[in-house]
């Protein structure tokens, strides 16, 4: 039986974690994430959640403990924000390369100095290269639903990558909204116990994880993370549909579109600001502006092909970036620009991924790269393409 409660975004996270039957939580307090971990602590202490809660001494340890727990095969969770997220950054990388299906809530907050506890997305964007699936919610209902869907996607054997659910500081984290809490039986069916993958620490099978890998194989392990990301594009869509079937709710899949079909002006945005943009669209349309909103529900994997398709049918694009890469520009702006590159001319770009983990790049390799690109150009290839150079296909399944 589902019920409706008036919840803050942070409490919606806690409810999502409870419904997902998470077994180990490790977290350290930081404003504005604190009420997530307070609520979970309450659930655990009053016996509503059958879980172990480690109140660790730092975010670095929070992610480390979450990794440790996940490596034993249980479902694990943490939550953080801002400075805390940056402090755990080293371990964020560790979790994804270990392919552990952890879910983390990130309450997106500005970075210091100067001290600011208020909202922006830079802390989250700093994780965009780490190999985590990254989704940003528009409202508190989506927060709860995304936590549950994230476990389902992350634990799928074709994905096996951790997920971040981002929610805007205060705008969602501390704002009350009505949230429908699905019945536990419904979620138990949707989210069965976690399969023991990709490995578990088990005395019956004494494996070593994460020791030294020479240049012979390192690059292929990195490529497999990218494969997981690619597979996630499909799973995100499938899981969103399935979730809609059982709950009736649809928040979008990789993207969430609002009045895009006839739009001549497209607003591209992520997170809670999208709600504001949708209201603005209604006002603007009354004024005669043909505007639509393309909300990026996921920024990793980046919905490149959808962005390219939507952008190609409009006359102008507005991107609202709540983050910045100093010396580079707006972060979503750069991703959007690279997605649409080549759709109206420009030279062929081959983006070679080469030399990871110490694999040699010699003069002969550079020659081959150039020759390959010239051949592609001569055969009429256009746009931008990412190529993994000299990948050992024979060692991949």
């Amino acid at each position, binding site marked *: 039986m589902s019920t409706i409660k008036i919840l803050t975004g942070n409490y919606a996270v806690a409810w999502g974690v409870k419904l997902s039957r998470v077994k180990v939580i*490790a977290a350290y307090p930081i404003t504005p994430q604190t009420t997530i971990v307070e609520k979970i602590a309450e659930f655990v202490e009053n016996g509503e959640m059958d879980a*172990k809660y*480690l109140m660790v*001494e730092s975010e*670095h340890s929070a992610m480390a403990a979450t990794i*440790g*727990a996940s490596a034993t095969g249980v479902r694990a969770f943490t939550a953080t924000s801002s400075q805390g997220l940056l402090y755990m950054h080293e371990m964020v990388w560790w979790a994804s390369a270990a392919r552990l299906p952890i879910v983390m809530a990130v309450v997106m907050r500005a970075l210091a100095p100067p001290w600011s506890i208020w909202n922006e997305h830079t802390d989250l964007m700093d994780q965009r290269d780490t190999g985590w699936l990254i989704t940003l919610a528009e409202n508190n209902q989506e927060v709860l639903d995304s936590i549950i869907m994230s476990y389902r996607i992350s634990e799928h054997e074709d994905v096996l990558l951790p997920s971040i659910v981002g929610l805007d500081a205060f705008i969602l984290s501390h704002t009350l909204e009505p949230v429908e809490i699905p019945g536990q039986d419904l979620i138990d069916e949707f989210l069965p116990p976690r399969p023991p993958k990709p490995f578990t620490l088990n005395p019956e099978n*004494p494996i*070593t994880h994460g*020791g030294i890998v020479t240049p012979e194989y390192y690059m292929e392990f990195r490529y497999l993370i990218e494969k997981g990301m690619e597979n996630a594009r499909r799973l995100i869509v499938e899981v969103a549909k399935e979730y809609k079937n059982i709950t009736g709710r649809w928040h979008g899949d990789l993207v969430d579109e609002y009045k895009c079909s006839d739009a001549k002006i497209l607003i591209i945005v992520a997170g809670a600001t999208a709600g504001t943009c949708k209201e603005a669209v209604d006002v603007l349309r009354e004024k005669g502006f043909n505007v639509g909103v393309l909300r990026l529900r996921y920024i990793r994997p980046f919905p490149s092909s959808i962005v390219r398709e939507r952008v190609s049918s409009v006359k102008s694009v507005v991107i609202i970036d709540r983050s910045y890469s100093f010396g580079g520009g707006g972060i979503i702006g750069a991703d959007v620009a690279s997605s649409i590159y080549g759709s109206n001319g420009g030279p062929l770009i081959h983006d070679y991924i080469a030399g990871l983990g110490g694999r040699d790049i010699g003069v002969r390799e550079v020659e081959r790269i150039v020759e390959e690109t010239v051949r592609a150009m001569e055969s009429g290839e256009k746009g931008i393409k990412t190529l993994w150079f000299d990948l050992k296909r024979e060692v991949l399944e």
Partner: protein
Amino acid sequence: MVRSEKRGVRIMPLRVMDLDKEEYVLPGNPSCPGCPASLGLRMLGKVLGPKTVLVIPASCSSIIQGVYPKSSIKLPLLNIAFAAAASTAAGIAAGFEAQGKSDINVVVWAGDGGTVDIGVQAISGAAERGDNIIYVCYDNEAYMNTGIQRSGATPFGAWTTTTWTGKKRWKKDMPSIVVAHKVPYVATASIGYIMDFAEKLRKASKYKGFKYIHLLAPCPVGWRFPPNKTIHIGRLAVRTGLWPLYEVEQGVFKLSPICMPLLKKENRIPVIEYLKLQGRFKHLREEDVRRIQEEVDELWDNIRRKLEDARC
């Protein structure tokens, strides 16, 4: 086997003959000849047995375990970032507990850098929380894996590649820092007295909560002595009084039996006999040696006082 009174755990002494014949550190691994870390880990496997999960942060043991796809360690092993060993182990222990698996030893095997320097925050957190893990620091008194740089565990006077004229500060007393967390079991050990280390591991495994063993691990490469002398140097460190072997069981300090005679100064070998065998100390002046000797004598005065106080 565990007795809750203040006297602590009593177990039958272990005999060499009874040790597990199974090897958990497999031969043909990349450790240097005479490596104390390899030997210590080998003993750890024999004592704690197959129901043991290891967590290893960046250290020489990241190398000793071999190169993908082969591992020289026959225990489940999770490699983890330098600062994260104790907290990762805490998470593993919590994961097992959540699944009702109570018979698995979760053990951190970390070097001195990963323990007394970069790892200290996570250790302090796990110790304060009482996470159910055994933390073993194998202390080779410098960052050996990266090329013999000074650590907080490097002793006074020692040459390293970042202290060319000898370290000017004293070795950090990590076991005492852990004792201050009021954990059930803390012990010091030396690779020179490996059966004593074995007993302490066994005892640590009988307690629930955070257990800490600090194992002195003389490194032939970094300390500049021939590889056949690892055990000999490890024994001299103890018999000169530089590295006292003791346990703090539920808050009660106990000098290990091997060290009882050392309470009398005349039974302690002068520190020069230890220092002169190691290239890392060859630049020491007479006054440096005297300072080290004075420091050792003072340390033992303190140990005697501590034992007398306990008796009162």
